[in-house]
């Protein structure tokens, strides 16, 4: 069985403008979209460029737009998950394109770095571990699943409209630390996200949750961040 991949191509070194290139790929049960891209690169056209590494949905390199929706290429089965025989593959929307399917993630990481994305404590640590109940762990466990693939930001209408918006990934990270029973830096972080380009720019469209390959309930966590702010104000 064959499927047709129509792949976004753009090499600013030589192309005046982007175009789509079509490749025919023999598909098989168990083949992922990443396998198909690798097949093209290795057997047909070594110039096709994209990011990839782990192939197991944990490194976050290969988020891209596949038939209009955002997926990790490595986690997408080409037969089971894509019903159509015609597959359009595009870079993650909302980012500047470096080449073909490779986008510039620097801005994404810069925003992440703005929310003080690290554990903050002022009291000296005990000799052993700080205690945390299973329930308290549960509050941060799912948020810690984030692989920083950038899919959520790409799907977010607020991020399209406002380039200074911190975006769902950075806010999720802020939530993870603020909700951690061991952390003592919530005030510093909440002051940063309490901004029109912070939590208040989220309009709860929940596109981010839909795009998240790890099924993290990002919008819920942004709502919880807001609650932390409101409760503080009260």
């Amino acid at each position: 069985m064959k499927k047709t991949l129509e792949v976004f191509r753009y090499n600013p070194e030589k192309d005046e403008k982007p175009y789509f290139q079509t490749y025919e790929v023999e598909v098989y049960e168990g083949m992922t979209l990443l396998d198909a891209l690798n097949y093209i690169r290795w057997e047909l056209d070594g110039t096709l460029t994209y990011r990839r590494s782990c192939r197991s949905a944990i490194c976050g390199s290969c988020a891209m737009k596949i038939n209009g929706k955002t997926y990790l290429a490595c986690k997408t089965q080409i037969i089971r998950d894509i019903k159509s025989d015609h597959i359009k593959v595009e870079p993650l929307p909302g980012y500047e394109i470096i080449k073909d399917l490779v986008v510039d993630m620097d801005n994404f990481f810069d925003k992440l770095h703005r929310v003080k994305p690290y554990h903050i404590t002022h009291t000296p640590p005990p000799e052993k571990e700080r205690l945390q109940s299973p329930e308290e762990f549960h509050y941060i466990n799912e948020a810690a699943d984030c692989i920083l693939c950038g899919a959520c930001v790409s799907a977010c209408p607020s991020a399209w409209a406002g380039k200074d918006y911190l975006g769902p990934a950075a806010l999720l990270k802020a939530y993870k630390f603020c909700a951690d029973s061991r952390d003592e830096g919530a005030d510093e972080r909440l002051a940063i996200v309490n901004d029109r380009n912070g939590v208040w720019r989220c309009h709860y469209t929940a596109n981010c949750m839909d795009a998240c390959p790890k099924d993290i309930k990002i919008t819920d966590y942004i709502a919880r961040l807001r609650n932390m702010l409101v409760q503080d104000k009260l």
Partner: protein
Amino acid sequence: MELEKTYHKYDVIIVGAGLAGERAALAAASSNLKTAVITKVYPTRSHSGGAQGGISAAIGNVDPEDSLEAHMWDTVKGSDFLGDQDAIELFVEEAIKTIYEYEHMGVPFSRLPNGKIAQRAFGGHTYRRACYSADKTGHVLLHTLYEQCVKHEVSFYNEFLVLSLMITDGQASGVVAWDLRNGGLHIFQTKAVLFATGGYGRAYKVTSNALSNTGDGLATVLEAGLPVEDLEFVQFHPTGYYRQGILVTEGARGEGGHLLNGEGERFMKKYAPEKMELAPRDLVSRSIWTEILEGRGIDGKDYVYIDLTHLGAEKIMERLPQIRDLAISFVGVDPIKEPIPIQPTAHYSMGGIPTNKRGEVVIDSQNTVMPGFYAAGEAACVSIHGANRLGTNSLQEASTFGRIAGNNMTEYARKTEFLPVDEEAVKRAEDKVRKLLENDGKTHHYHYKKELQETMYEKVWIFRNEKDLKEAASIVKSLEEDFMKNVKIDDKGMLFNLDLQEALEVHNLLTFSQIIIAGAINRKESRGAHYRTDFPKRDDVNWLKHTLAWRKEDGTIKFDYKPVVITKYQPTERKY
């Protein structure tokens, strides 16, 4: 063709941004040294993040009778007595400090009802000592270290590929790297270099490793005229998803998962009646492969099952959620309802760049130190894993020796001056890139990788013999010779040239794979993960020693051997 050159100076340079590299960077940066990390991928994409099940330390939260002695003995025995016991003793002590340090950095560990860090069972460990975060332990450790590096303002050079090691007057003096994103050579002058470049699983067709795990550090070291140690010891993880080889954590067996053959039998009772599924990985992988070879795979095919169904939905969702998600995505099986088809997969590199227990690279059988050069993590061979690593000891090794090596390199860099650039290393790097960009060969580099990976899978796998190994040696040697003449890349541009990167990686694979094979031919015994059907017994009289191998300029391999450090435990028969 002129390649653009950019020069940098940092007090310390770290190559690789997995746990070992980031932990070393943190040591240097928190001591206010100007610190740079060069990494092929964004730091959070490093393959330490793929580790799932846990990180070992005898903190005794679940089994209070656990002890440093027990962890040391399990590791020594697991290593089939090839591990260096001085390093192992240090490792088990420092492991405890590492866990509490991680906890204080904010690592989200799964917890016990009393609020302490939870611990689960793992193969070859007498007690439950794997600290974990559901089944994403490596992921949370990697992200936490990255966060700490951000806090301490480490400079990251993301998407840079190391090309050569600079050595000036017998001291490591820097590295030359390729800027993947923009093209161009970058010459990093430094007072101390640390390689944390990861493992070499990509030499194999079926592997749990990321596409990035191409052993670049090993090849770079070999090209600089330095030795590598014990490369013939490749760990085959018992449970990779069928066909893809992607990891199913050993934590799945730690939580009580069963291995079943085509007859529905828990076959481990024949091979390790006491430990069953929780025997060490070398033994479990050989058992699975024996079942397959004897026709007892599922439907007679080359896979068996891991069955989690009896654990129940709640436990699977709580402890192994990622495994369930991946099983559904990759093999279309929901482990709550059905067993998962699995096969052994090339997983971990016990061998690597030889170091002492301070993380300093040593360059001969007398353990002579090369000043200014450090290595840690899977890229290094210290050697605590010897012939077979126990699960959860790798995250711990990368973290603990990343810290130790990082502290020692910091101390060294403080009292050292910059050295002149090693122009020969710059030329070597430039030649590599130019040759590929200018070569007008006929054969795409993928052809060589595919041939190599199939050869390694067929002839240098779980069961080895002299005939297969010699055939493999000859095939891989000719592949490399042919590569040098006929390789082709399609993309000749400067901008994000993945084709060029992969071609450089393929040559790295070809370089060190010849040493895996030659080491395996020489070692006429079976020990840990290295099993010779023609020499099925361990031979302590002749082979209780580490392999050191150099690649000579003409491509031939020179060997030497060095003794294993034995302090507390004399080798005995290894039974589980």
